[in-house]
């Protein structure tokens, strides 16, 4: 385990994919994982690796897992994926949006191998896609922000202006306005998924400008720590970060891939695997909320009720009437925004003052 870490790290910079394999066995199903970051990021890749371990635990000696961490997005990923297949993997999970085209190419070349691409949209007979409806969690934390903020200003530490992040901002604010219509948001883009120093600086900046709730769409726990130091409230990202903000964290949106990975691997073992697209949310527990902490009882009850309503389908974060910034009606009352529009969302909803990202 430790040696793998070291080798994996060495692989980053020279882009030499090195493979961490457990003891070889002929009749086990080999399952490969490709991670975009280090498994020690305590965020996105960390949660995927938690699920990989859960898979090993659940299916025991029927499977053998292998992973490559720190794989750069883009053409380079192709080699890493193909390496896993050559190494004998019969099922490969590629866990970042940027691995999409590489996964498609390798899947074409190896029709007998099953591929699962996380957060993408290109499918094939042996290539399925899956993702989490993180925006559902963001609606819940938006409501919490609306209830818990005194200044009425939320600071949003954002990574890159892509649809997933933009839809998250929209969903968060729709949640906040559902309990506090005058809520304002200040957004700072750090243009990185992972740069602890910059994430911390962005959080400080936002707090200095009056935000008393911080939320983030970046990967490290830096902003949580700043919030703890400055005595404001905050939400964890990808994993439960309560340890970094015992008095500050209200909740966290936690990615839970374990059930899906176990279920899909079991399907390969049973010979029932089929390509498809799964977009799981609070209902299917692919997105779960960390315990609601540091808040009054009635606020906690409200959040739990919202989670229940979203899970049962009673409440959809993007329900009509929904307007764009310029006032155009996008969704009529009684309807909800269709999935493809959520996946491609590049506009802000009415009420957000910021200029929409290009």
């Amino acid at each position, binding site marked *: 385990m430790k040696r793998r870490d070291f080798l994996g790290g060495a692989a*980053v910079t020279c882009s030499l994919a090195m493979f961490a394999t457990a003891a070889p066995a002929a009749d086990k199903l080999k399952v490969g994982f490709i991670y975009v970051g280090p498994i020690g990021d305590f965020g996105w890749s960390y949660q995927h690796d938690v699920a990989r371990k859960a898979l090993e635990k659940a299916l025991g000696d029927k499977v053998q897992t292998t992973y490559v961490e*720190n794989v750069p997005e883009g053409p380079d990923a192709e080699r890493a994926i193909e390496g896993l297949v050559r190494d004998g993997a019969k099922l490969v999970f590629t866990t970042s949006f940027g691995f999409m085209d590489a996964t498609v190419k390798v899947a074409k070349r190896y029709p007998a191998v099953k591929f699962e691409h996380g957060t993408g949209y290109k499918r094939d007979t042996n290539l399925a896609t899956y993702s989490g409806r993180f925006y559902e969690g963001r609606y819940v934390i938006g409501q919490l922000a609306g209830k818990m903020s005194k200044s009425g200003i939320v600071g949003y530490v954002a990574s890159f202006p892509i649809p997933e992040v933009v839809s998250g901002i929209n969903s968060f604010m729709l949640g906040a306005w559902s309990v506090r219509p005058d809520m304002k948001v200040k957004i700072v883009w750090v243009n990185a998924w992972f740069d602890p120093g910059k994430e911390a600086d962005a959080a400080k900046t936002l707090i200095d400008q009056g935000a008393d709730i911080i939320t983030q769409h970046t990967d490290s726990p830096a902003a949580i720590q700043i919030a703890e130091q400055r005595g404001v409230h905050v939400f964890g990202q990808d994993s439960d970060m309560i340890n970094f903000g015992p008095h500050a964290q209200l909740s966290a949106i936690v990615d839970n891939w374990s059930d899906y990975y176990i279920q899909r691997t079991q399907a390969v073992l049973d010979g029932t695997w089929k390509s498809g697209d799964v977009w799981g949310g609070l209902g299917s527990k692919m997105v779960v909320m960390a315990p609601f902490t540091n808040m009054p009882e009635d606020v906690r009850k409200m959040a739990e009720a919202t989670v229940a309503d979203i899970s049962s389908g009673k409440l959809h974060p993007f329900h009509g009437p929904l307007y764009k910034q310029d006032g155009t009606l996008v969704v009529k009352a009684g309807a909800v925004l269709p999935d493809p529009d959520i996946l491609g969302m590049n506009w802000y909803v009415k009420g957000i003052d910021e200029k929409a990202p290009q």
Partner: protein
Amino acid sequence: MFLEAIVLTVITASTPLLMAAVGELVAERSGVLNLGVEGMMVMGASCGFVAAILSGSSIVGALAGIGAGTALAAAFAFMTLRLAANQVASGLALTILGLGLSGLIGADFVGARRDPAPKLHIDGLSDLPFVGPILFGQDGFVYASVALVLGTSWFLWRSRAGLTLRAIGDNPVSAHSLGHKVLRIRLLATLFGGACAGLAGAYLSLGYTPFWVKGMTAGRGWIALALVVFASWSPWRLAAGAYLFGTVTILQLYAQGYGLGIPSQLMSSLPYLATILVLVLMSRARGRGAAPASLGMPFVPDR
């Protein structure tokens, strides 16, 4: 107060760059080009954090960071000075080694939390408005970075040993024939560079963002390297460059918070553009301080 908040954030953002860059400046002045700053820095971050958690002391952590950076620099010195290996290749290898090894050392400490390193507090002085927190309320790392700039500047331009070091960086053959121990002085300069990078790394994991995650330096070692070049090997210009970079980085975050509507991608590139522009103009305006003439070239004394 608003300005105070900005200045405080700028100081934390600039300090790690400044510390790592000052060390590299001294190494390069002696003719050693060590591209492994990022690797030594990240090792300093992981070893510093682990030692601080185990001992409960930020000072022990800082010392461990210095030690880790120095140890990696020693490996580099062995390859490039003793074996006269290519400095560019060895430096890159050092970065790869540091990134991997630091992950291994820190693996069990991911998710551990620590309070930031304690800050100075002098009754009366630290409570003054504005100047109090900025001048008398920093942690030890910030004061160390200032001392490093002052000390390095004095050493390089006002001391005999500094003159020798610069001479070796410009012309090791002549210095050798005058009886100066070229390899020994280059070794010391390289180790000093490693110690500074290690300390800068320890500041990241103990003061700036007190936790450990793999790769948390996020390219700061490379920025430090670039600063040395653009500051044309002068400690004062280096300090100006590091603070300018930090200032523009923070100001663009503030500007975004105000919603000026400038594309964030452009804003994020501003620190790089501004720093390069200003430092190049500064270097042009003054003649002194071209690159050490033998930078990156191995020296093998004939016996």
